[in-house]
């Protein structure tokens, strides 16, 4: 088996990752905005007897890098030299894209041109003479649609053929004068054009030639080479592209007239965000109820029955019902909320609206010293802080990058939302308002953090704004579901590993030392009481709250699973008669009803999800309601909002910025979270106690 390395190179947002996903069956992240891919990523596939390693690179407009992600692509192409470059081109913007093609050709690596977005080109009346292009450059040219996968199949056989026939692109010819000079500085037979140009522009010993050029052209050598490249790209474009005059109006232009309207744009943005959260709650609420019932009154009785009939013993059954059902199962009821919110966030990302928010909000952001582009990672933070932090690599300056990384952890993610939605419903009449305020509070703390950093450490001034806005695009449903599934799978995986382990650990601590009767005399209680004084000023002196917070530094959902486990032993279990066929029917009917309610909810103008229902029995909710006051519940939520209790986030900060930054930030977030919790507890106490 021979192995081949192929790099996908091209301008940002032209469909490189989409094509790689089709070729290698991977699900690397795709999105309709420049800057989705910021690291070198790879996929592998087999074809005939070749193992083909496909390297996905961040998009670049030119091989003159500025930001960190652009450097990654530049370094890979110039230093590692792949066996073949798959140059992906956005056909509607061929003239622009051909500049990079010319620069890539200078490296004299075998190449295949992929004319992607052929569907959009066709709609715009753009036609390409592929055969002529192929002859002019001496490379194979393929036409694809990265959205549907049309034409992608032809890529692999062409790669293998081109390489086994040792096809080489024609060597680019610039103007005679330049070629003559380049030949003079050639020292070896096999030097590439790129190497020659680099020597001409940079090497000390060739400064004489630079002066010659300046005399001949009246310009810097840099300028002259640049002009030659552009002329080449433009010439190619003129040769192969023809366009029919079309009269149909561009949908993107029409949408932008409204969505980017100088006055309406920003209110519309807030309205869209409001809709996003409203729909996620309202649609998922009935489904969450259903999952709750499904686990509690269907799965749990079945498994208990099995455990009992196998005679595995009482403590196994208790472990199951308290740690697995009470802890892990409890967290699982939030799966619908997670799925719906990611579905909507994915729509936002694929539509092309995301970078437009950066454009719209820059007028406010830059007044407070932040770059509008920072908004893209900040918004991604509402989905998950970890990829959001990685996304800061597209920012052009280190200052912006660090500022934004210090803000992202305060953007509330779905893991926090899950905790809030649970507590807010128990303690407040208007849970939606409370949750909304928490989100805003997080944003304010982020802004305050940025302000402090700007006044002390990162003084510099603001950088220019340069960004491309893609056309609005519709994703395929398959693509959206793949994204949603990736997040749900991740959540389930964590439920099955981390959260499960934490629940079991807590359960054992609750049942140690052996023979302990009352949980309040268990090891877990002793541990909780040991750290409770720290949380007493926040009104959280109940050992059960303190104990739940201990393992939550791994991930915030663990607070819920731990509480579920701790309180599960106190919830009276009602023994009900269980008939499989009847229960099954009930579940199916219930699911139907939940789906119907979910759909109806979406069309209600006001949020409905949080209408509090009375529950008569000793449920988890009523137990928690009796062990906390509203003020301390608020303090608890704020503490969890602000303190970076997420191993993933700390780890990615460590990797992206460094150990010192990550640990300092962790301490900072703890202090801020604690202080804010303390103040709110005091203020809340004044309000609710009078």
């Amino acid at each position, binding site marked *: 088996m021979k192995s081949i390395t192929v790099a996908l190179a091209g301008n940002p947002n032209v469909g490189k990752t989409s094509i790689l996903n089709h070729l290698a069956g991977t699900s690397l992240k795709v999105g309709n905005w420049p800057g989705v891919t910021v690291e070198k990523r790879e996929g592998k596939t087999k074809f005939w007897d070749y193992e083909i390693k496909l390297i996905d690179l961040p998009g670049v407009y*030119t091989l*003159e890098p500025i930001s960190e992600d652009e450097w990654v692509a530049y370094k890979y192409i110039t230093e590692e030299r792949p066996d073949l470059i798959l140059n992906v081109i956005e056909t*509607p*913007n061929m003239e*622009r894209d051909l500049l990079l093609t010319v620069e890539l050709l200078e490296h004299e690596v075998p190449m295949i041109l992929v004319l992607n977005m052929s569907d959009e080109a066709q709609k715009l009346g753009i036609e390409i003479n592929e055969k002529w292009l192929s002859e002019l450059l001496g490379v194979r040219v393929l036409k694809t649609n990265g959205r549907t996968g049309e034409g992608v199949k032809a890529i692999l056989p062409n790669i293998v053929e081109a390489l086994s026939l040792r096809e080489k692109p024609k060597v680019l010819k610039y103007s005679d004068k330049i070629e003559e000079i380049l030949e003079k500085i050639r020292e070896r037979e096999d030097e590439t054009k790129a190497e020659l140009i680099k020597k001409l522009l940079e090497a000390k010993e060739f400064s004489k030639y630079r002066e010659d050029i300046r005399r001949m052209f009246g310009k810097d050598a840099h300028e002259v080479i640049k002009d030659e490249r552009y002329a080449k790209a433009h010439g190619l474009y003129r040769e192969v592209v023809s366009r029919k005059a079309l009269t149909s109006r561009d949908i993107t*232009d029409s949408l932008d007239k409204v969505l*980017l309207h100088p006055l309406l744009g920003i209110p519309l943005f807030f309205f869209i965000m409001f809709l996003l959260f409203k729909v996620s709650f309202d649609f998922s609420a009935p489904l969450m109820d259903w999952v709750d019932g499904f686990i509690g009154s269907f799965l749990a009785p079945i498994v208990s029955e099995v455990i009992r009939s196998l005679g595995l013993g009482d403590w196994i059954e208790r472990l199951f019902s308290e740690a697995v059902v009470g802890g892990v199962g409890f967290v699982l009821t939030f799966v619908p909320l997670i799925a719906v919110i990611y579905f909507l966030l994915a729509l936002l990302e694929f539509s092309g609206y995301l970078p437009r928010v950066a454009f719209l909000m*820059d007028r406010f952001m830059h007044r407070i010293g932040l770059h509008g582009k920072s908004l893209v990672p900040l918004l991604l933070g509402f989905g998950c802080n970890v990829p959001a932090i990685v996304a800061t690599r597209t920012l052009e300056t280190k200052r912006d990058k660090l500022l934004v990384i210090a803000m992202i952890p305060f953007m509330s993610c779905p893991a926090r939302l899950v905790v809030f939605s649970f507590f807010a419903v128990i303690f407040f009449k208007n849970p939606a308002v409370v949750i909304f305020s928490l989100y805003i509070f997080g944003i304010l703390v982020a802004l305050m953090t940025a302000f402090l950093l700007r006044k002390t450490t990162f003084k510099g001034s603001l950088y220019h*704004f340069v960004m*491309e806005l893609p056309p609005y695009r519709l994703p395929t449903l398959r693509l959206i579901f793949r994204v949603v599934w990736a997040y749900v799978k991740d959540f389930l995986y964590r439920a099955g590993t981390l959260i499960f382990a934490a629940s079991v650990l807590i359960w054992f601590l609750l049942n140690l030392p052996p023979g302990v009767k009352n949980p309040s005399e268990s090891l877990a209680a002793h541990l909780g009481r040991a750290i409770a004084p720290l949380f007493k000023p926040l009104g959280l002196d109940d050992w059960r709250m303190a104990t739940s917070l201990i393992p939550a530094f791994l991930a915030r959902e663990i607070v819920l699973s731990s509480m579920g486990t701790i309180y599960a032993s106190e919830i009276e279990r009602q023994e009900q008669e269980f008939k499989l066929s009847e229960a099954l029917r009930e579940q199916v009917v219930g699911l139907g009803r939940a789906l119907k309610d979910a759909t109806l909810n979406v069309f209600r103008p006001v949020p409905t999800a949080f209408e509090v229902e009375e529950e008569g029995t000793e449920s988890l909710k009523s137990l928690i309601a009796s062990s906390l006051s509203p003020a301390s519940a608020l303090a608890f939520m704020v503490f969890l909002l602000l303190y970076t209790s997420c191993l993933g986030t700390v780890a990615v900060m460590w990797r992206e910025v460094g150990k010192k930054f990550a640990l300092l930030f962790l301490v900072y977030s703890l202090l801020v979270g604690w202080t804010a919790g303390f103040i709110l507890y005091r203020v809340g106490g004044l309000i609710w106690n009078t």
Partner: protein
Amino acid sequence: MNLEEVRPGQEVTILELVGKEDILKKVEAMGLRRGRRVSLLQKVGRNLLLKVDNSRVVISKDLARNIEVQ
């Protein structure tokens, strides 16, 4: 005149990019270079939204000042 002075809806031809900053090279590579036609779609805050060929590019006014147009 320079690009900053163009009004929304107007279409102009780029004459020259003045300045030595690295970012201008990127701006050029994004299609804003000598001889190209650009139209100004919107002005919002410190930024301009331009259409070049079939792509839309946002640049801030401080950069637009470096671009001479006609």
